[in-house]
């Protein structure tokens, strides 16, 4: 190319390569089988290097995504041709088989089939034989195109631990010949539940994890949302619970930027600037929650999304409908009787029934003593309730525990501020 052809630097779409990696891995796995996942990953890597080599000296192709897919497809066909050379068959037979294979591969690279392959990959990563940690890591690697160091950052782990998880998961899939497919019937429903759990975990890891840096956390939340949307666009995933989960993610993500101030201090819901909440995401959340309101199954995602919606749609903290929130928490507690739900419910209870009842509700949580000494959130919430009740000594004792336990610098700053005021 010559000078002047390219007046300004061109821009690639954000995360294009990650997303294309996910697509290529899924389609190539359809061709080579999940037992050849390493070959598949190498082929994807080669495709990117080829792109890098050609694109960097000149201009981008008009459709970079189509270009990458074409190179991956040709590479697949090429690998099969080479494989055929070792056959016992006649040249005529080889030519027949080759042309059949090429036709099928062309099919696999059609858009509708790409989506199908990606769904297969999501379902394979979420196979019930794998433990949840491995499911999450494998999904990030093979569906989302994250690298090992990026996964380690996102999951607040280290590279060798992530390598181990990926290795374990892949070995298990090979050893047990787990099929690369979308389950049917009752197995589909059961598998979808696992997929929801993995996407929910992924989102929360990004949303709540306090140790990793903001950029990767944002990426992980966005990725969980993208996969949930992908699921909702496919016939097998187009279910009320999928939309409920998607709406929950939208509501939570709408507050992503208002949780911290410029000094990296956590801002509580009560004090957040609601003008900073992302209206577009709140609208999307409402839309998806509406779509989710069909059928007779009320999932935890429906309830959690309805709770998030109540917060997002209240014009200010004072106008929050606490009574309705309490009802939602009561039903959530039936489906999900775990301490963190009890704790969150007590915060609502403080608004509806007064702080004394809220404190009693927290004290009723089984194993509270242990929880207080291990998870900062319990001491912080209970401490704050005691503060509201005027029991400053107990409040300070608990907030100091929370200060010690929280891994978050932001939360430490916030608690330090509170504790200083109490002295």
């Amino acid at each position, binding site marked *: 190319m010559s*000078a002047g052809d390219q007046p300004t630097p061109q821009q690639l779409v954000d995360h294009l390569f990650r997303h294309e990696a996910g697509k290529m891995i899924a389609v190539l796995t359809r061709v080579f089988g999940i037992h050849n996942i390493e070959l598949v990953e190498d082929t994807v890597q080669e495709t*990117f*290097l080829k792109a890098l080599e050609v694109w960097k000296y000149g201009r981008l192709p008009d459709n970079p995504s189509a270009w990458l897919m074409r190179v991956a497809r040709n590479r697949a066909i090429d690998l099969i041709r080479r494989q055929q050379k070792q056959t016992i068959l006649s040249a005529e037979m080889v030519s027949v088989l080759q042309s059949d294979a090429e036709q099928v591969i062309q099919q696999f690279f059609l858009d509708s089939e790409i989506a199908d392959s990606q769904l297969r990959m999501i379902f394979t990563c979420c196979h019930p034989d794998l433990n949840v940690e491995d499911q999450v890591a494998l999904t990030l690697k093979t569906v989302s195109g994250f690298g090992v160091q990026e996964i380690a950052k996102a999951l607040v782990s280290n590279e060798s631990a992530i390598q181990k998880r990926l290795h374990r998961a892949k070995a298990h899939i090979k050893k047990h010949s787990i099929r690369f497919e979308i389950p049917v019937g009752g197995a589909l429903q059961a598998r979808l539940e696992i997929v929801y759990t993995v996407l929910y975990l992924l989102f929360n890891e990004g949303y709540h994890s306090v140790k990793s840096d903001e950029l990767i956390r944002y990426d992980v939340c966005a990725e969980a949302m993208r996969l949930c949307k992908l699921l909702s666009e496919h016939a097998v995933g187009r279910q009320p619970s999928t939309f409920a989960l998607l709406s929950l993610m939208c509501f939570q993500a709408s507050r992503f930027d208002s949780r911290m101030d410029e000094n990296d201090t956590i801002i509580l819901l009560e004090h957040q600037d609601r003008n900073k909440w992302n209206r577009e995401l709140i609208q999307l959340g409402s839309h998806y929650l509406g779509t989710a309101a069909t059928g007779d199954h009320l999932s935890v995602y429906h309830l959690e999304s309805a709770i998030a919606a109540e917060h997002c749609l209240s014009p200010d903290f004072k106008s929050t409908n606490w009574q309705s929130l309490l009802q939602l928490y009561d039903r959530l507690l039936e489906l999900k009787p775990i301490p963190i739900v009890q704790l969150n419910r007590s915060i609502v209870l403080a608004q509806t029934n007064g702080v004394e009842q809220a404190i009693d509700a927290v004290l009723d949580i089984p194993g509270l003593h242990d929880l207080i000494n291990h998870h900062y959130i319990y001491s912080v919430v209970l401490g704050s309730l005691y503060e509201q009740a005027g029991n400053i000594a107990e409040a300070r004792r608990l907030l100091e525990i929370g200060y010690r336990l929280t891994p978050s610098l932001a939360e430490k700053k916030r608690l330090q501020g509170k504790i200083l005021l109490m002295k």
Partner: protein
Amino acid sequence: MKDFMFIIRGQEAAQAKRTPEQTQGNMQKWMNWIGELSAKGQFVGGAPLSKEGKIVKGLKQVVTDGPFTEGKELLGGYLIIKANSMEEATKLTSGFPDFDIAFLEVREVIQMDMHQ
């Protein structure tokens, strides 16, 4: 303005073991660098070179596979850049995105004046 050749030597990008996101980041840096040079009218052209090739050597013109240079010195590609001086040309290398795996040799392309 004179022409300068940037000769790129070093490891292949495959050696860098980049993640898709990092590969994209690297690609974006290349496009920014070349794009800026183009915008200033200083980019003439360039191309990558395949690592496979032949060596033809000696009076008997013996052909062997090659170059098989040591990885760190492998010629990976070249760029032709317009600049007023060697000093300016050298400064233009600052946007080169691959200093982690490769290095640049900057050489002036000597203009032939046939009317001398």
